[in-house]
């Protein structure tokens, strides 16, 4: 909302400075966005006259001017064609900052002739694009007086942000009322301006609604004014509109814009001669259409509040008028409209048709229902004053809704909710100044809410009114009390695990990223998603349509983009949600990561090593271990979802069903569909599936009981069929003598010369840990036999000979 300081003073009798006013606006909740103070910008720029012009001795296009700046004559070299003796323009002295060019003006010699200052063009003054010549003022202002005043720019423009609840401050008068309440001056009342109509309006007006739809337009006042001259607006009106960025059009249009801005009372003026018959205010039927004032042709759905005549729709109520009844230069007879339109319907119409207008902006926030008739009368008076003509009596359809919500207000609520003590007298004073009528009552204050404050409906609203006028700054800040001296741990297991996952993966050299929760449909389908229930109805782009079934596609795509920039070797991870369906239970937290390119790059000590499935398995296992999962007890399965390489991926499970993680090489087909070079390996840890930590009585660890006897390591080279899983062999080995075998690890895998076709050699190091006595050779031999037998029984393994 823009207005000028001078405009504000037409409603507020104040001695406050601009700074005091803008500070107060922000403190009241009418946040200052900007002050555009042209007078301050053009300080030092003065009205000056060129008294003499002579040719430049060394340049054909330049002139040497003598300029009277009110105090003395200075010499200025000027290139403008229109520079001539007797021209009054704007002089910028040496040292000025030229707003249009951003340059600081220095004393200069131009082709050998001294130049002390400049006569400015419109462009240099930031008044337009015209740089063809210097600006020419038609003014009586004395030489040396401020140029901003002579240009009509003396009045600073204030721009404030008005919150959606304060429709009443979308007019200068409402803003002045708030400032007056805050002690910045006295609100000047709006003068009653009743105009007696000399005849009955020839255009009748009726409301055509059902009881259910009557809120669309409960009150509509019209008046004919005949014999007007739609002249150019007077300077005061044009300057106001220009200052806030509106282009003056004609008196009738400008007057309705002026009332919109001045007192938040949108009006509409029809060319009465273009109206066929009477006006009816009603809801549109689907298919009706209107050529609107903005030059667009709108086809309406049903339910739009329209003003129509015998021939059809003339105007969209509260949103925009129509071209057919627009007032032009030749308009002679007009019908002025002041009406009340429903905020919700107005907003819906504007949104559906994509029309932004000053009227819509105000009606959808709620116009003062009591302003209809006073607005009409004041507008009539101004039209008669500027355009002449003869006003009819008012045509009134409907009535203003019942005013005045009454609230009982306990003043103690200000302290209870607001933390600030105020007396009842002070509370009453503030409320009265804001237009509420407050009178002492048994329960505190009996408060009548003014018609323009639709937003105030309960005691908490009144608390805010009193607090914001007193100033939030006055509320003493109190520390939040703590129930206990020391804070208690607050993170849940799931929250702690997400943190463990993040920091353990980062410690392993993976870089955390955060990607959008939605991905393209193609990618969602590649990763098991793409269901209709998770597709956005209004996506922002075709690449962000589906809630993701997996984090991997975004990571893989990111790896591709980084590779395109020359960073092909990287590890990325994200801890975030994935979605199986649209219910709250369908969302699950997953830690997913990828490694692309080489895990270790080329180095003088060895060759580069590309990422493989075991890197992904290691990453996933590290997360599980950090989260307290007994990793050794997990079963690896070669089953993995379809987006992994079918022979180079697997999953870790707890029990037969619960999948804790999947890992492996990404399927080359998936990579090629995503246009990313492979190989890429990845993993997904389903944090929600991890078993809850076992409840323990305390934090004490079991006592460490290191075996007093030396452990013995024996190596076994087994030959198995190549389909046999190493984990099955190791499990069989470990199970051969659980009391003695502390560990078994595969340390070599070999197939080739010396090993039969379709077979593989797996070498296992077994650690034997005696607890009673040092092992004898025969004991070792006995357990070795058991190991070989167990391996053979479980997997068909034989010792390699």
């Amino acid at each position, binding site marked *: 909302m823009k207005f000028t300081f001078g405009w504000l003073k037409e409603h507020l009798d104040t001695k406050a400075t601009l700074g005091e006013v803008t500070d107060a606006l922000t403190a009241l909740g009418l946040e200052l966005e900007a002050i555009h103070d042209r007078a301050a910008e053009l300080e030092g720029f003065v009205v000056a006259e060129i008294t003499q012009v002579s040719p430049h001795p060394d340049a054909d296009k330049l002139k040497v001017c003598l300029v009277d700046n009110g105090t003395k004559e200075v010499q200025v070299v000027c290139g403008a064609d229109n520079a001539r003796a007797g021209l009054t323009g704007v002089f910028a002295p040496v040292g000025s900052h030229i707003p249009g060019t951003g340059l600081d003006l220095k004393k200069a010699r131009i082709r050998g002739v001294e130049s002390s200052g400049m006569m400015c063009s419109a462009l240099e003054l930031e008044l337009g694009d015209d740089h063809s010549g210097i600006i020419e003022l038609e003014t009586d202002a004395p030489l040396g007086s401020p140029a901003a005043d002579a240009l009509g720019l003396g009045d600073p423009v204030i721009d404030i942000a008005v919150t959606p609840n304060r429709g009443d401050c979308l007019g200068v008068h409402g803003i002045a009322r708030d400032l007056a309440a805050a002690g910045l001056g006295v609100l000047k009342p709006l003068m009653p301006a009743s105009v007696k109509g000399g005849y009955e309006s020839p255009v009748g007006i009726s409301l055509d609604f059902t009881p259910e739809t009557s809120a669309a337009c409960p009150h509509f006042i019209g008046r004919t004014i005949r014999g007007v001259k739609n002249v150019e607006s007077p300077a005061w009106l044009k300057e106001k509109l220009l200052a806030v960025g509106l282009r003056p059009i004609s008196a009738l249009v400008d007057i309705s814009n002026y009332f919109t801005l001045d007192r938040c009372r949108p009006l509409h003026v029809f060319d009465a001669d273009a109206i066929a018959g009477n006006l009816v205010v009603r809801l549109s039927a689907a298919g009706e259409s209107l050529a609107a004032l903005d030059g667009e042709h709108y086809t309406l759905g049903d339910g739009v509040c329209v003003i129509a005549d015998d021939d059809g729709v003339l105007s969209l109520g509260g949103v925009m008028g129509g071209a057919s009844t627009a007032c032009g230069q030749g308009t002679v007879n007009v019908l002025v409209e002041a009406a009340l339109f429903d905020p919700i319907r107005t907003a819906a119409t504007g949104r559906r048709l994509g029309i932004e207008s000053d009227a819509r902006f105000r009606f959808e926030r709620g116009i003062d229902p009591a302003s209809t008739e006073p607005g009409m009368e004041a507008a009539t008076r101004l039209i008669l004053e500027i355009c002449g003509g003869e006003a009819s009596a008012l045509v009134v359809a409907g009535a203003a809704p019942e005013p005045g919500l009454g609230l009982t207000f306990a003043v103690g609520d200000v302290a209870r909710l607001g933390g600030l003590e105020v007396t009842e007298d002070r509370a009453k004073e503030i409320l009265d100044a804001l237009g509420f009528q407050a009178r002492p009552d048994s329960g505190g204050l009996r408060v009548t809410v003014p018609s323009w404050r639709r937003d105030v409906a309960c005691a908490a609203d009144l*608390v805010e009114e009193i607090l*914001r006028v007193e100033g*939030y700054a006055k509320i003493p800040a109190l520390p939040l009390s*703590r129930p206990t001296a020391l804070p208690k741990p607050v993170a849940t297991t799931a929250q702690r695990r997400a943190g463990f996952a993040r*920091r353990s993966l980062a410690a*392993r050299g993976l870089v*955390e990223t955060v990607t959008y929760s939605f991905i393209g449909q193609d990618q969602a389908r590649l990763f098991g998603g793409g269901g209709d229930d998770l597709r*956005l*109805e209004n996506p*922002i782009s075709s690449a962000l349509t589906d809630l993701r079934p997996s984090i991997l596609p975004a990571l893989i795509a990111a790896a591709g983009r980084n590779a395109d920039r020359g960073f092909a070797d990287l590890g990325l991870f994200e801890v975030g949600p994935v979605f199986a369906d649209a219910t709250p239970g369908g969302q699950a937290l997953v830690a997913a990561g990828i490694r692309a390119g080489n895990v270790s790059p080329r180095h003088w000590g060895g060759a580069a090593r590309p990422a493989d499935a075991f890197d992904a398995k290691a990453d996933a296992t590290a997360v599980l271990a950090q989260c307290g999962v007994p990793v050794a007890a997990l079963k690896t399965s070669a089953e993995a979802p379809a987006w992994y390489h079918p022979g180079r991926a697997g999953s870790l499970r707890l029990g037969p069903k619960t999948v804790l993680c999947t890992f492996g090489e990404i399927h080359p087909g998936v990579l090629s569909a995503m246009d990313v070079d492979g190989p890429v390996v990845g993993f997904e840890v389903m944090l929600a599936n991890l078993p809850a930590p076992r409840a323990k009585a305390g934090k004490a660890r079991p006592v460490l009981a290191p075996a007093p006897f030396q452990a013995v390591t024996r190596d076994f080279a087994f030959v198995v069929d190549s389909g046999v899983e190493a984990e099955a062999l190791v499990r069989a080995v470990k199970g051969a003598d659980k009391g003695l075998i502390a560990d078994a690890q595969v340390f070599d895998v070999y197939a080739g010369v010396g090993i039969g076709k379709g077979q593989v050699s797996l070498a296992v190091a077994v650690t034997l840990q005696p607890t009673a006595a040092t092992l004898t050779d025969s004991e070792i031999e006995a357990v070795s036999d058991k190991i070989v037998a167990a391996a053979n029984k479980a997997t068909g393994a034989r010792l390699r000979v």
Partner: protein
Amino acid sequence: MADLETPEKLTVDLLAEIAGVSDLASLEAVRIRALGQNGVVTRLMKGLAALPPEERKAQGQANNAVKRAVSQAIETRKGALDAAALEARLAEERIDVTLPVRPEATGFIHPISQTMDELMAIFGEMGFTVAEGPDVEDDFHNFTALNIPEDHPARQMHDTFYLPSDGAGTAKLLRTHTSPVQIRTMMSTPPPYRIIAPGRTYRCDSDITHTPMFHQIEGLVIDKATHMGHLKGCLEDFCRAYFEVDDLPLRFRPSYFPFTEPSCEVDIGCARAGGELRIGAGDDWLEILGAGMVHPNVLVNCGLDPGVWQGFAFGLGIERVAMLKYGIPDLRTFFESDIRWLSHYGFAALDQPSLVGGLAR
């Protein structure tokens, strides 16, 4: 020949020979020639048996002296040669220590995660617990319960992403703020409440300063006494701790949110000089969060009596405070997964923030 030599002469000869050898192999040859089974000293000792008993003692002592002197000389010489050999080997083993070590990838924590951890560290100290809610919400939790009825202009301002309605006809949407977690918390557990709810939020808006997904943290304090003064104190303490500026000025301005009344926006002081932004006392203000006393309608919607229960709520944008604290210029870059950006603005894995240990390194 040696038989003819006296022990004295033998000693002198052998010692000279030992002193003359230049490597361990030659020294070993001398040792064998002198002290080996057929060595000259050994034979000398063996010859003792052939001597008359009266000579044996003196001769024996002399022989022993020879053996001792020679053995000692060999040991000493061996030590010297060993040391020289080691020195020579080590000289051979020189490596170029300026060569680079085996490469190890360095991981980083994303600024959003790090900032969330910082916020949790601060609010945790103030006794807040962390609450969570789903990203896919319904109209009721995201709007209606928060005093934003259907057709309220604020619904349009939220630029909501919608999903197809479920079987029961309930409109599904992506939460536009973390405030629905307030509703879920109040509807599922008894008061009082002191929670924060960090998480993803979504609005269908995308330009230089908006991304379709961003992160917020919601705060809610409900008990029987908390008022605007506590709101001010809590947020002052928070802002000063987070930005690590003890005298950071705050400005509370009246504002409007449908779910709070009275409402405010909070600005922190800053100074802009030479194109640089400094958080702290200065001549300008930066808006960083919205807050207010929870609207009585919201309490009623959650089954609480606003005559008994009261308190405040606040919400702030995580990316925004991260950008301000760490000087990150562009919101969109948070979600681009550019490894250069992640490595530059990311945080070390072990950099777990705490108020005691320090928030930011």
